[in-house]
């Protein structure tokens, strides 16, 4: 027959709750709790705290991507051991850098294309002034190439203005 506990021991109850006691000790604590309201209260409090903690922990861990965290930790460990050239390679080939570089290169190419593209539907040359000792001047534009042509007829020799 198991002997009951002679006095209250909160540490022993805590160990009981955590399942750390042997068969004999566990029986003693159980018998004591049945007759001791104070120790019963301690056990109930321990259960309450444990339940609350469990609920909170579950709530907090819902959003954690454990696989990503594991990968991050392993990557970091690998990088710490790797030589400098491997670290540099990892840095420049990382998704973040590649994303930024690709986006920037895309915008750069677009800007260059826009800035360098010839303006359609505009003549090759805009004539801002024309004059001379000539009898006539005609400004033409080649229909296909949009090339501007200035045609003038020279005044016959000896016929000034």
């Amino acid at each position, binding site marked *: 027959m198991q002997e009951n506990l002679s006095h209250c021991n909160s540490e022993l109850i805590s160990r009981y709750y955590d399942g750390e006691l042997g068969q004999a000790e566990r029986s003693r604590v159980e018998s004591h709790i049945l007759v001791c309201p104070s120790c019963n209260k301690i056990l109930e409090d321990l259960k309450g705290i444990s339940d609350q903690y469990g609920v909170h922990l579950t709530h907090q861990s819902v959003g954690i991507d454990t696989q990503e965290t594991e990968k991050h930790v392993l990557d970091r460990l690998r990088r710490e051991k790797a030589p400098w050239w491997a670290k540099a390679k990892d840095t420049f080939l990382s998704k973040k850098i590649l994303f930024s570089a690709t986006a920037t290169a895309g915008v750069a190419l677009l800007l260059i294309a826009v800035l360098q593209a010839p303006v359609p539907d505009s003549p090759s040359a805009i004539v801002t002034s*024309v004059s*001379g000792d000539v009898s006539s001047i005609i400004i033409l534009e080649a229909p296909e190439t949009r090339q501007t042509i200035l045609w003038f007829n020279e005044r016959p020799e000896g016929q000034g203005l």
Partner: protein
Amino acid sequence: MKIYRITLLCVIIVSILITQADEAWSGATINLNVKTILASQKPGRDDPNLERFTSGVKDVFGYSSYKLLSKDNLKLNQENSGRISLPGNRSMKITSKGISGDRVTLQVEMFKNNKQIFQTVVRLLNDSEVTVGGPKHEDGNLLINIFASF
């Protein structure tokens, strides 16, 4: 969100650099390729060196043949002039007046016996050409094709 901020920053910096570079290129040298061409009614084959030119102007002029008489290259900086000799005691002076936007401003003057007979100011697109024509020579007319790149 950090990656998007970095990307946005890179895009802004590159955009500014490209825009500034485009303006900076505006101060670059202007390369002029000047072809002196004799257009005439004389039957003959077109000069193979003028294929691009003739394909553009054949519908405009009624000439039978186009012959390349000379080809000159001028490199001009801002406010620089270059001069080329033309047949019939003529010459052409081309002066760069600077680049504005996507066009270079050129003053083109033609002289005969050292006297200016014609002048024009044209604003020419990059990698494009303007042709000045009309002076009589031999049995046809001279066409001076100016191609500019900068």
